[in-house]
C-alpha cells in the first residue's frame, strides 16, 4: 500500500514538473518563424544590430486583425486572407466561421475587429451596436436541384415562383402535376411523389431561399416566413450542402436547394426558373450579378438589402449578399487602416478569386457605394491615415 502510494506520488510529481516545465520551452519554439512569413520580403536585417538607425519596417504579421461570423463566405475569405499575405505581409487575418449569429454578437461586444453575416441586422441589433456598417462583399446564388430518373437526359426542368413555393409548401406532391407540366410541355414527367429536401442546419442559404419564397408567395410568408432556419411544412433535412445533395441524389423524385457553386461542382441537375420579368433564366454568375445590379441603385443607407426576385429580364431570382460588419469609427488606427486597405483590394483584385470559387462579385454600381462608405471610415473621430 505505502509502496503504491509512493509510486503514485512520484508520478504526480513528475506530472507537476512536466506541467511547470512546459512554459520554459515555449519561447524556444517561437523563435522559429511561422511558415506564412517565409515568402514575405523578409526584413531579417532588422534583427541584426545596425549602427545606422533606419526607419524600421513593420515586422511581418505584427498587425493581427480578428474576425468572426458567417460560414457561407468562409472559403472565399480564407482565400483572400491567404493571397493578401503576399501583398501586405505586415497584416495577418484570423477569421473564425462560427456562424452569422456569433459574428454579430462578437462585433457587437467588440471582441473582434470585424464580423461577418449573411443576414441583415435587425433594428435591435443595429441599436445594440451603434455606428456599425454593413458592407456587402459578394453574393451567392441558391439553386433548386432535383433528381428524377426520367429527366436525366432531358433539358433542365423549368419552375416558376408559384410551383416552387407550392412544392415546398407540400401542396404540389407529384412530378406530373398540371402546374409543372404546363411549364415543361416537352418533358416526360413521371407520376412520382416529390420528396422535398431542405437544409437542417441554420444557414444563409436557407435564409436566401426562404426570403425568395416569402417574396413571391403570400402563403409562404404568412405560414412559414424567412430565416436561417424555419419550420418546414414538409420534407427531410440534410446537414449542409453535402447533406442535401446526398439525400437528393439517393432518392428518385427528390428536390432540394443548394448553393450554385456546390451544385455545379457536383454536377447536380439545376432547375431553371421563370423570373419576375417572366423570362426563363439559368443560374450563373452573370445572371446573379444582374440581380445585384437591378437593385444596385436602390441600396438604402445601410448598404444592405434583399435581392431576391429581381425585376431585370435576365436576372436570377434567388440570391443574396453576404456582409462584413465593421465599425464606422475604428478604435485602433493601424488595424482600421489595414482593414480598409484590405477591403479595397478584396473588392477589386480579389474579385477574380471570388469567381474562381463561384461567388458573385459586386457589380460596379454597388462596388462604388462600398468604396464611398470605406472613405468615410474614421479612427477615433479623425479620418484614417
Amino acid at each position, binding site marked *: 500500500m505505502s509502496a503504491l502510494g509512493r509510486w503514485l506520488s512520484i508520478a504526480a510529481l513528475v506530472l507537476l514538473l512536466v506541467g511547470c516545465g512546459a512554459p520554459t520551452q515555449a519561447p524556444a519554439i517561437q523563435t522559429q518563424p511561422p511558415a506564412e512569413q517565409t515568402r514575405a520580403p523578409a526584413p531579417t536585417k532588422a534583427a541584426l544590430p545596425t549602427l545606422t538607425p533606419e526607419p524600421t519596417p513593420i515586422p511581418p504579421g505584427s498587425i493581427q486583425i480578428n474576425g468572426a461570423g458567417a460560414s457561407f463566405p468562409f472559403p472565399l475569405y480564407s482565400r483572400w486572407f491567404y493571397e493578401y499575405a503576399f501583398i501586405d505581409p505586415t497584416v495577418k487575418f484570423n477569421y473564425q466561421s462560427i456562424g452569422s449569429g456569433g459574428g454579430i454578437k462578437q462585433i457587437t461586444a467588440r471582441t473582434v475587429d470585424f464580423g461577418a453575416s449573411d443576414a441583415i441586422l435587425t433594428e435591435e*441589433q443595429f441599436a445594440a451596436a451603434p455606428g456599425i456598417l454593413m458592407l456587402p462583399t459578394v453574393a451567392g446564388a441558391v439553386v433548386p436541384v432535383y433528381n428524377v430518373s426520367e429527366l436525366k437526359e432531358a433539358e433542365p426542368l423549368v419552375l416558376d415562383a408559384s410551383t416552387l413555393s407550392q412544392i415546398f409548401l407540400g401542396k404540389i406532391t407529384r412530378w406530373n402535376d398540371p402546374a409543372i407540366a404546363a411549364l415543361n410541355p416537352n418533358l416526360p414527367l413521371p407520376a412520382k411523389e416529390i420528396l422535398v429536401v431542405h437544409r437542417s442546419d441554420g444557414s444563409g442559404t436557407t435564409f436566401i431561399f426562404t426570403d425568395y419564397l416569402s417574396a413571391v408567395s403570400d402563403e409562404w410568408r404568412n405560414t412559414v416566413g424567412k430565416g436561417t432556419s424555419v419550420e418546414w411544412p414538409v420534407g427531410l433535412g440534410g*446537414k449542409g450542402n453535402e447533406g442535401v445533395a446526398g439525400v437528393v441524389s439517393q*432518392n428518385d423524385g427528390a428536390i432540394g436547394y443548394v448553393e450554385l457553386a456546390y451544385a455545379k461542382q457536383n454536377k447536380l441537375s439545376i432547375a431553371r426558373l421563370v423570373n419576375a420579368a417572366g423570362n426563363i433564366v439559368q443560374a450563373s454568375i452573370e445572371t446573379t450579378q444582374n440581380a445585384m445590379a437591378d437593385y444596385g441603385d436602390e441600396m438604402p443607407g445601410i448598404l444592405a438589402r434583399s435581392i431576391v426576385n429581381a425585376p431585370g429580364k435576365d436576372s436570377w431570382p434567388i440570391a443574396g449578399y453576404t456582409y462584413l460588419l465593421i465599425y464606422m469609427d475604428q478604435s485602433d488606427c493601424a488595424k482600421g487602416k489595414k482593414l480598409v486597405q484590405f477591403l479595397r483590394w478584396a473588392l477589386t483584385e480579389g474579385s477574380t478569386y471570388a469567381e474562381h470559387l463561384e461567388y458573385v462579385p459586386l457589380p460596379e454600381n454597388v462596388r462604388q457605394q462600398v468604396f464611398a462608405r470605406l472613405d468615410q471610415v474614421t479612427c477615433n473621430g479623425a479620418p484614417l491615415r
Partner: protein
Amino acid sequence: MGSQMVHKRVPAFRVLGRVLHHGDRPFQALMVLACLATVGLVATIGWALWRNSALSRAAFGWHFVVTSRWDPALDRTFGALPFLQGTLITSVVALLVSVPISLGVGIFLSEVAPEWLRRPIGFLVELLAAVPSVVYGLWGLFAFIPSFVKPLANFLNRTLGFLPLFEGPTFGPSRLAASLVLAIMVSPTIAAVSRDVFQAIPDAQREASLALGATQWETISRVLIPYGLPGLLGAVILGLGRALGETIAVTMVVGNNLDLSISLLHPGYTMASIIANEFAEATDELHLHALIEIGLILFLLTLIINSIARLLVWGVGRRTMREREG
C-alpha cells in the same frame, strides 16, 4: 501530522523534503483537487445552461417539453418533444441492436476465440472506437444508407408495415439509419469493456463449472454472465452515454424532421442534432435560449439515466456479492 512537525521546529526545507518524500499528503491534496474540479465542472455546466435558458423557460415553462412546434422564423414558438422522443428512440434501438452483438464479440474474444485470433480482432474492435464520428456520418449518408438501410427499410415496410413502428414511406435518412449508425458506433466500446470484464473473471469459476459437467455454453450463460453482470451493465451504460450525446453522425443520417410518429422508418430529430444544426446561425435571443434549454434537458437526461444505471449496477453488485458469500 503537520502540527507535530511544527512542534519539533525542524527547518522548513526539511519539512518540505519529508512531505515530498513521504508523498501521501501532496498526493492526497492533488487527488482531492482533481475530484473537486470534476464536481465543480458539472455544477458549472448545469448552472450556465440554467442561466442561459432563462428566456425560454420563462416563455414556455413546462410546455417546452410537451409541445412539438419548433418555429424560429415566424411565431418564435419552441417545443422540445420531437427531439426528446428522437433521442430516446434512437438510443434505445441502438442499444437493442448493439448489446447482443457486442456482448457476443466480448464473449468470443475472451472465451471462444483461439489465442492467435484474439489480439488482431481485439485490436480491430478498438480501432472502430477510434474512428471520428463525422467519418461515421459521411459513411452512413453516402454508403451505408443506400446500400443497406434503404433496402432493409423497404423490406421491413413491406413485411411489417402494418405495425406503427414500421410505417412508410421510406426515404433513407431515418431514425432507423441513425439507430444503426449509433449501434455501430457504441459497439466497440461495449465489446471492449465486456471482454475485459470476462477476462477479469477468475479461472476458478470456469474450472468449477466445467468440473461440474457444464458445457461451455452453460458456463458462459449461467456462471460468467451472472458473475460479471455489474461490469457488463457498466459497459452498456458507457455505450448509452455515447448514443445519447452523439451529434454529428446522427445529424447527418437522421433526416432532421419534426415527425412525431414512432415509426423507425420515418425521419426524426434528436436533441444533440437540433443544437448542432441551429446554434451557429441563431441570432434571435429566444431561439438561442430555447436551444440552450434543450442542452439543459439533455444534460439532465444524461445525469438521470446515468444515476439510474449506477443504482442498477450497485443493486446487481450487492446481490452478486450476497450470492457469492451465501
